[in-house]
């Protein structure tokens, strides 16, 4: 994950409390989604950025997971995300993020 964005995630967790943050990913591939999810839960796996050694344990979901989709406005969802939902492998993405969440997240919805 971009180092600047790691810092912003860290700042947000400090400012609002890690228990109040929900990170939602829009990643296109399962491997990338896992790396993002790991970064915001267990810390930066590459040890390059501000989240290195910082296991925030944030709640993390992929936008295509049912828990998130059911919170969205259905018409807007169709307009904004419907097309990518058809193209992306939602099940693989959801399973990838869920796997990391169950392993490292201290919080969930």
């Amino acid at each position, binding site marked *: *994950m*971009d180092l600047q*964005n790691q810092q*912003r*995630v860290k700042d*947000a967790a400090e400012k*609002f409390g890690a228990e*109040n*943050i*929900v*990170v*939602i*990913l*829009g*990643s*296109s*591939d399962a491997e*990338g989604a896992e790396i*993002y999810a790991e970064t*915001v839960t267990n810390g930066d796996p590459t040890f390059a950025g501000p989240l290195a050694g910082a296991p925030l344990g*944030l709640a993390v979901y992929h*936008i*295509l997971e049912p*828990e*998130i989709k059911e*919170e*969205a*406005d259905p018409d*807007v*969802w169709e307009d*904004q*995300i419907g097309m*990518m939902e058809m193209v*992306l492998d939602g099940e693989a993405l959801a399973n990838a993020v869920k796997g990391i969440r169950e392993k490292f997240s201290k919080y969930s*919805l």
Partner: protein
Amino acid sequence: MGKLEGKKLVLLGERDGVAGPAMEESLKNCGAEVVFSVTECFV
């Protein structure tokens, strides 16, 4: 009350996946506040 009600959202979008603004738009009425939203791209 929705599951996201009162939460602070961090939206990490991707150019080749779902972009930040698309997620923001879809979730704007869910009762959560978007703290920040980005769209990363990998070249």
